[in-house]
């Protein structure tokens, strides 16, 4: 089963904090998005393995946009 991790805010993807293949625990910060001049962490709510990054660093993202796919 796969699940997307989405950005809670619109902004610019500054940093990917995990790589494809990494295992993440619930509440792991997986990315930093810049919005309103702040560095806002994006958190994986559930555990899983990072299957695929869907966006590259520096790209503009919309609120609720999927950033990466997690495999359970």
């Amino acid at each position, binding site marked *: 089963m796969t699940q997307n991790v989405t950005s809670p805010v619109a902004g610019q993807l500054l940093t990917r904090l995990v790589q494809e293949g990494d295992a993440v625990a619930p509440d792991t910060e997986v990315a930093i998005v810049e919005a309103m001049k*702040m560095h806002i962490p994006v958190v994986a709510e559930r555990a899983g393995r990072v299957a695929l990054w869907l966006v590259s660093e520096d790209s503009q993202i919309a609120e609720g946009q999927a950033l990466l796919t997690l495999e359970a």
Partner: protein
Amino acid sequence: MSWKPELDDLERRRRLALELGGPDKVARHKAAGKLTVRERLAGLVDEGSLEEIGSVAGFPEYDEAGHLTGFTPANVVCGRARIGGRNVFVTGDDFTVRGGANDGGLREKFQFAETWARRWRVPLVRLVDGTGGGGSVKHLETMGRTYLPDVPQFTEVLDALSEIPVVALGLGSVAGMGAARVCASHYSVMVRGTSQLFAAGPPVVARTGQVVTKEELGGSAIHAKNGTIDDEVASEEEAFPRARRFLGFLPSSVHELAARQPTNDQPERTAEQLLSAVPRDARQVYKMRPIVEAVVDAGNWFEIGKAWGKSVITGLARLNGWPVAILASDPYHYGGAWTADASRKAIRMIDLAQTFQLPVVHFVDIPGFLIGKEAEASGVMRFGTQALAAVRQSTVPWCAVMVRKAFGMAGLSQRNGSPAFLRYAWPSAQWGSLPIAGGVEAAYRAVIEAAPDPAAKRREIEAKLEALQSPLRTAEAFGVEEIIDPRETRSYLCRFADLAAPLRQPGRPHFGYRP
């Protein structure tokens, strides 16, 4: 001769009423994962406190000799009861009789149930599990005519919101008037998976070409995120304590004041972690909820609306035993910038506080209204200006803790229109009409462009201005009431709550409450 036979007759009807819509309907209802209206009432109120009103109202069947042969109760069960030892009025729809629709009820009983609480100045709790008010179009044939839509008691239903606390739990698929009865409240909750809410359900929507399930159309996750309801919970059993807790912070009506509750939490208690709660790096976020929890009376933080308008956290709490309303920025969501939704959510909390005279504490970290295309498309300035109006029109005592930023028009929300407002700034606070970074470009463009090294010139100007941005400079000019040690925030706020308590004024609010 005593009146025992008549009492036996009464008792028999009461027993029949307990069977609700009959064993088959009850079994089907429970198989859907829902509690019966009587189980719900029992779960909600203090044990044994329900005094039913209209217990034998319903639809009897008599034989030719006038003997009772059957009985279906009206599908509203209501009465007075106690929650936390205080009087309330509760009314619950019985889905097992005609799906809770109004043609399975008695108009007189329904109207009574919706209006009793305001007349007796006690809180109202609705357990909504019914469809619309119109019943069925089959009605047309019976009546031989149609009618202009009206709910005669609707004026009174809305008026109640300006006088008594109203809580609504959406506990099934509610449409039309059922949906409006959930929304026409100060606090509303839906249950994940078993409750849905819509203007009209899937069969009607299908006629427009949209084929959707109940859950896709109006599940609790949808409405907890758009602010149609305040909170969603995982089970009906979790909804009842939320209703009880909410009411615990409020007076029984606007004609009284919220009571102080004894607390073991010392008002002078300090919280060491607050000294470093805000990162020195201005771009780094921090968690606001633990700050709020560290400051208010232990175990007395009740967050409302967690799933929507996320850049502002709203809820109820106690300080030295006094109930207060809380607004707090969440930097994790747009750095705390007020969005259209956050503005709507703030309005809802401020109006609740004003109606029931709860002093407000605002933990401020607001870089401004949200900027950008999406923000403009969402109408942020309209709703934002409404929120600023709600803040300024409120007259309850107000205290701001300036945690970090307060910029632009949204930064005005740090104080309300009460003459009794106070602002305590943490050393991490910074404020202004414009944030320096963006403002420098605009104000010093000519100077920067003329410099041999424009970037260096810009940095030089920024550094100069940043040095002026310390809250100490503002305090020296008495532009803020006080700068405090964050660790001592609780004692300041408890003294604020003590000072504020006698300023609260019971009575109807100047404006009618709009749900």
